């Protein structure tokens, strides 16, 4: 029996799947996912935004009735390390753009918790469809950070094999990847696989028709997909008020699946909420919309100038909610990391930055004939003809040089 046909008949397998989930994971949050009170269910009217938070900006742990995450000091240090290294890589890439080594860079500054928390919630067998800003998620998936730079340097349009790390290529057309994720998830359901698919997108993308269609398809086919929206408050210069009149997570109710808002600058809350949503998907309970409420601390890309459209006060207010700072406060509060840890991490950050710099400066330009490669998998006579003509043209210069 397939997930889809079950959903179509409306049989109560949801409850059974929920019990299975709880038994398998043994965690509190998985058992409560399906109908957690903090989520917006189908048919529920718009309500005041609630936000799952487990770690305050001051670095204090707080309880949530439906979500919890058990962490060892080592796990907290790992999350902190992920965020610090991701931020350092991102800063280095921005600097490399300023030095002319990259044509463009979309910074993730401020969104480290949303990306590391969600990325670390996934299994290797899960599959991620990113936008073009998911450098932290790529890090969690094990994609070498230097591979992300190729398309921004202009040597390729995506320099990694999506199936090596179950991390699809960056997608620049806003929202297009949410449909790919949904289709992939429909295939997962057909295969009966134990896999969650995560579609990343932003608040601006929430206005795209493709995202609306992805919600519809995912709901109708009960596809195992997590729609992970990083609401960073700004779509280039347009504030969230230009995209929506209701909190984004509440839109899920209209499609018939749960939606939940999480503090996107709280890595523990994002981890807990994404784990639950992914398990919800893996256990045949269908899609979830997670709205990670966060902030784009930097520019949209290196070509942008946010001083033209937003206040310093707003930035300062969000600086107080910094995702890395609050975890550092927790580490210090709980004595979960000593000075040697921070010193080692500084050294590791420097080494990463050095490696990134060296790799970009030694990254070769592609061969001129490379543009003809991979246009088709099965070949195309026109491409063959043009390739040959262009090779002849290039060879004509060699002849002249030979003379």
């Amino acid at each position: 029996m397939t997930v889809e046909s079950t959903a179509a008949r409306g049989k109560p397998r949801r409850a059974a799947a929920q019990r299975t989930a709880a038994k398998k994971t043994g965690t509190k949050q998985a058992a409560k996912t399906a109908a957690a009170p903090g989520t917006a269910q189908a048919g529920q009217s718009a309500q005041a935004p609630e936000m799952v938070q487990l770690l305050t900006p001051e670095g204090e742990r707080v309880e949530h009735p439906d979500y919890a995450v058990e962490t060892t000091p080592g796990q907290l240090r790992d999350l902190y390390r992920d965020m610090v290294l991701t931020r350092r890589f991102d800063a280095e890439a921005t600097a490399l753009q300023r030095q002319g080594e990259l044509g463009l860079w979309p910074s993730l500054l401020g969104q480290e918790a949303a990306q590391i928390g969600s990325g670390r919630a996934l299994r290797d067998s899960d599959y991620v469809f990113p936008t073009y800003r998911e450098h932290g998620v790529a890090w969690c998936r094990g994609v070498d950070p230097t591979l992300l730079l190729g398309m921004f340097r202009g040597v390729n349009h995506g320099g990694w094999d999506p199936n090596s790390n179950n991390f699809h290529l960056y997608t620049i057309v806003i929202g297009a990847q949410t449909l790919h994720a949904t289709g992939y998830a429909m295939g997962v359901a057909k295969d009966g696989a134990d896999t969650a698919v995560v579609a990343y997108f932003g608040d601006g993308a929430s206005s795209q028709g493709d995202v609306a269609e992805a919600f519809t398809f995912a709901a109708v086919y009960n596809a195992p997909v997590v729609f992970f929206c990083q609401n960073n408050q700004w779509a280039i210069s347009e504030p969230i008020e230009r995209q929506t009149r209701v909190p984004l997570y509440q839109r899920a109710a209209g499609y018939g699946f749960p939606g939940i808002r999480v503090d996107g600058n709280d890595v523990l809350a994002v981890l807990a909420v994404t784990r639950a949503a992914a398990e919800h998907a893996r256990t045949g309970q269908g899609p979830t919309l997670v709205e990670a409420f966060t902030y784009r601390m930097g520019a949209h890309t290196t070509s942008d100038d946010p001083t033209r459209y937003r206040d310093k006060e707003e930035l300062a207010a969000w600086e107080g909610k910094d995702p890395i700072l609050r975890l550092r406060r927790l580490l210090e509060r709980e004595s979960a990391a000593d000075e040697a840890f921070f010193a080692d991490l500084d050294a590791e950050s420097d080494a990463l930055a050095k490696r990134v710099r060296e790799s970009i400066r030694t990254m070769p330009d592609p061969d001129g004939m490379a543009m003809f490669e991979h246009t088709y998998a099965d070949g195309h006579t026109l491409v063959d003809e043009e390739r040959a003509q262009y090779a002849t043209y290039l060879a004509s210069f060699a002849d002249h040089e030979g003379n």
Partner: protein
Amino acid sequence: MAAEKMALAKALTSSLRTALDSDPKVLVMGEDVGKLGGVFRVTDGLQKDFGEERVIDTPLAESGIIGTAIGLALRGYRPVAEIQFDGFVFPAYDQIVTQLAKMHARSLGTVKLPVVIRIPYGGGIGAVEHHSESPESLFAHVAGLKIVTPSDASDAFWMLRQAIECDDPVIFLEPKARYWEKGEVDPSGIPGPLHAARVVREGRDLTLAAYGPSVKTCLAAAAAAEEDGTSLEVLDLRSVSPIDFDAIQRSVERTRRLVVVHEAPVFFGSGAEVAARITERCFYHLEAPVLRVGGFHAPYPPARLEEEYLPGLDRVLDSVDRALAY
């Protein structure tokens, strides 16, 4: 299976059936393709035999159909998506052009996108607006796509099978005015290459190059011209991307004159590309400029006017006369 005479639409049904039978990864998806069997009944009976998991009625959202087909292909499936009519493909145009066509190249060849998009196209059935258009040039301009269109039942059967087996995205244009034309289909035969043109009538004085619905028109024109003592060769191009220029060249080197016929507007149409390339290749063979016959640079007209708009027998013969007069 023995050879059988069947309508072009039924040949497509039979083709889909054999594809679904032979490869469990093949899926059929689209609006109304299930119980109804599609608005032209091309998918008739398939859902009953292969189930809702493989013959999938989709929400009414074309971008969603193609976007999810891409995802299914990435998961290892071979989706055959139906767009209900030519004029309804445009909500999916972004997914086709920016995603489907480019993804293999963007992945440096690591992922393949074996997606077939079936689109009934062309006019002549007295339909309402957006149901009679010929959008092939809008796809032919996009690298990464292949575009084919059968003109008879046998090609319909085999070309669809080959398109489904192809590892590239294929826009499969079905000449809806010819859906009911019958022809012999031999499922035990061996098909020729998918993108090769085919001489469907040999002639000496001029080559008519056409595809899809216009092939029948050109055959009728050749029959009429024969009565006047003019021998026209008819070449069915079958593929719009790539175009088999070698076959056109071979024909034109013999006949020395070429007229290209299609229903799509002449301006920036595939005929322009054929004219330019054949002029380059056959400059010293040509006795006349390559002429084109097709739709006008006007919105496809209301059905009562479509016979004026479509390149019918008389307009084809008029161009033949003009080419022969050089």
